[in-house]
């Protein structure tokens, strides 16, 4: 097990690299499978020093579920934003919201910030230096507390389960 760990410090990252390689060459010929596997093993080993605190994924299935929810929400987000953009602009209520963060892992915070930018009417725009609050710009807010509660419940909680498993 330890030998396995040493060879594959980040198994999911390796799998991702293999997939990217296969997509890039656009074939699943055996030669490219071998080359892709070699790259997928070598690159995490070479770059392992650059990962200050390596994200640990505790439950891959929850990650898959999270991605599915995210894709669905991106679809919805676009309909919402399209309606807001094409509607009368005077009636919009843009606002900055401070979102208190419970996540501590840097990678998880980055994923959360990206998620917020891709989902309905919100763009994350600044992280406080102590990594405790995220500044979000919302295109049209009716109630700040509801927006914060939705984000926390829908995205932050699953991310905590995936990356921190407390």
């Amino acid at each position: 097990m330890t030998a396995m760990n040493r060879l594959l410090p980040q198994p999911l990252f390796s799998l991702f690299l293999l997939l990217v390689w296969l997509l890039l060459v656009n074939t699943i010929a055996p030669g490219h499978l071998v080359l892709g596997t070699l790259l997928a093993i070598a690159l995490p080993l070479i770059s392992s020093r650059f990962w200050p605190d390596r994200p640990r994924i505790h439950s891959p299935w929850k990650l898959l579920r999270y991605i599915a929810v995210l894709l669905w929400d991106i679809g919805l987000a676009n309909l919402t934003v399209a309606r807001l953009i094409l509607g009368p602009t005077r009636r919009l209520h843009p606002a900055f919201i401070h979102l208190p963060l419970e996540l501590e892992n840097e990678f998880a915070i980055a994923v959360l910030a990206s998620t917020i930018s891709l989902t309905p009417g919100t763009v994350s725009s600044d992280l406080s230096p102590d990594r405790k609050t995220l500044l979000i710009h919302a295109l049209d807010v009716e109630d700040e507390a509801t927006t914060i509660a939705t984000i926390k419940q829908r995205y932050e909680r699953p991310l905590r389960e995936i990356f921190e498993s407390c």
Partner: protein
Amino acid sequence: MLDTLIALFLVIGGAFALIGSIGLARLPDLFMRLHGPTKATTLGVGGILIASVLHFSSRGDGLSLHELLVTLFLFITAPISAYLIARAMLHLRGDDKP
């Protein structure tokens, strides 16, 4: 049948790309303008890339999925660009001092 699906994705993609750019041109301040390109344009390009995947996969020489790579790349980079532009704007306005 497949042609209809491809055409549908092309129309949706083109429409969303246009809506994103209308947002960029029309909304009154920078932070609101950020919303159009990060969401609508990214999905618009995504739609066109999916149409491309379907089109080239239906020609008979195997699956052609490499356009997914561009889509993936755009979905990862769009929030980062938006975040950096927003921070640059906050910095220029002098709002980022603690």
